[in-house]
């Protein structure tokens, strides 16, 4: 893997990164790092005017741009999206199918241009090898987002423990004060100590709220485990790459459709789709593909919402730019499907509302099984079929928000 391409140069992805970059700058850096919303490279051509000279210029530009259309996977351009479809394998995990991208350049291409997939051993972008290299071999200085999360959690835990201690002291003091035999002096002493502790606690709290996470100057203090040693090649000393980029089935279908992904043995997006759906018009995976396609087509970055119990999360730019704004849950016009109990909707809405996102119910009108079967068994070309099939479904959305009459009163 080329040095620095796996995530070593990704300080901007993290909110509290080491070097404090001014906000505008940071935004610009992000734009530079993630210029394309899809893994498609636009080729900018000079405009053609009445001046015959511009025709020549344009002609030349076409000529030179043409070879780029069939870019080879050039290592030096690894972080540039290319029109060469990324290779992807699939396998079954009991009843589920998973799509894997293992080539480092493919992983980078798909992540950097539209935030597709998820590192199998990372929270979002595949940063496992960077993290592990530092942890095991002490290489690299920039914190990945997972490391920052961990540090934050540790800080919060420290704060909570301190808070518990102060509460204990307070209780103890109150007990002493209620006993008349307690000498005045002891109460005074204890009160002073308690006040000092409280001040410290307040400082801790303030720190938690504003302080960016400090860059650990030394490798994070953890023992090297036996499990880690097995990762390092005994001769070359290189780290085994355990991580791959996993695509959701709906991502695999979408990326194949736009020509950015190639699954050996599954030549078209239609054949990829057939691998993941059950054959009934209201198959949940099919509906997911349609809803995914719907929001991707409208320019949203769509990612899994499992952490918040939703089907998808919608990001305006992508995870490094902003937090997700909307949580999508899917509902169909069919009986006995998921998300039809008020209790469930209410619960999900609480979770989504709790992390300050909107909850959107994507309501999907599912066609009759006959209409579905007609398209599936039809004679159209595979690539056309997918469009025709998707055309049978209609997605509308409804926003849902918890409203408490006694609180949300104007």
């Amino acid at each position, binding site marked *: 893997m080329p040095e620095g391409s796996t995530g070593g140069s990704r300080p901007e992805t993290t909110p509290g990164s080491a070097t404090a970059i001014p906000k505008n700058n940071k935004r610009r850096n992000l734009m530079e790092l993630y210029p394309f919303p899809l893994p498609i490279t636009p080729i900018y051509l000079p405009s053609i005017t009445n001046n015959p000279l511009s025709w020549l210029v344009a002609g030349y530009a076409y000529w030179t741009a043409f070879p780029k259309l069939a870019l080879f996977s050039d290592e030096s351009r690894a972080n540039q999206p290319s029109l060469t479809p990324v290779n992807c394998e699939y396998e079954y995990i009991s009843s589920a199918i998973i799509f894997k991208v293992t080539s480092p350049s493919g992983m980078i291409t798909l992540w950097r241009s539209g935030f597709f*997939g998820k590192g199998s051993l990372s929270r979002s972008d595949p940063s496992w090898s960077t993290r592990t290299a530092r942890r095991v071999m002490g290489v690299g200085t920039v914190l990945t987002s997972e490391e920052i999360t961990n540090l934050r959690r540790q800080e919060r*835990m420290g704060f909570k423990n301190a808070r518990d201690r102060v509460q204990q002291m307070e209780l103890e003091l109150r007990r002493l004060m209620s006993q008349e035999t307690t000498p005045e002096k002891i109460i005074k002493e204890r009160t002073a100590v308690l006040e000092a502790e409280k001040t410290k606690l307040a400082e801790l709290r303030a720190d938690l709220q504003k302080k960016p996470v400090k860059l650990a100057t030394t490798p994070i203090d953890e023992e090297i485990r036996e499990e880690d040693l097995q990762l390092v090649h005994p001769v070359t000393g290189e780290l085994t790459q355990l991580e791959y980029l996993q695509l959701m089935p709906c991502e695999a279908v979408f990326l194949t459709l736009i020509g950015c992904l190639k699954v050996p043995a599954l030549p078209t997006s239609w054949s990829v789709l057939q691998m993941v759906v059950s054959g009934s018009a209201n198959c949940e995976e099919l509906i997911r593909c349609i809803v995914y396609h719907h929001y991707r087509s409208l320019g949203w970055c769509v990612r*899994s919402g499992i952490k918040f119990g939703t089907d998808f999360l919608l990001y305006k730019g992508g995870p490094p730019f902003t937090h997700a704004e909307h949580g999508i849950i899917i509902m169909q016009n069919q009986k006995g499907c998921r998300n039809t109990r008020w209790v469930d909707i209410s619960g999900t809405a609480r979770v989504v509302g709790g992390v300050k996102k909107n909850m959107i119910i994507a309501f999907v009108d599912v066609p009759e099984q006959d209409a579905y079967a007609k398209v599936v068994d039809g004679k159209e070309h595979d690539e056309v079929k997918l469009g025709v099939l998707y055309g049978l479904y209609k997605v509308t959305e409804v926003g849902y928000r918890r409203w408490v009459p006694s609180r949300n009163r104007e």
Partner: protein
Amino acid sequence: MTSLAEIVATNLVHYNLWTAVEDVVLSSRTVLCGAPPPTSVIATDSSTVLSDQEYVLPLLVSEKLTLATLDGIFREIAERRAGVRPEKVIGGILNTDGTVVYYFIWDGVAKPRKN
């Protein structure tokens, strides 16, 4: 072909930094047993101390889970521990995007931990 248990085990060892993770083969499925990292990053208070023998139940997000299944797993683990049911197992749920989310599943009614 990789098994669900292998994927969850890899996630435990190389993402969550558990050690000594081993398969425990039960009649119906394979669960895992291992030790969480000592400087645990788990957002718990002191009341939830994780042992070095935590049981993890690998699950697929699309699979059906019944009370009987869970009950059976507690029972089978108990058989290997002189009849003592573990106080909890940790459900490791693999999602279609490769995320594994972990949930404590306590046997019976549990008191929530302080946060």
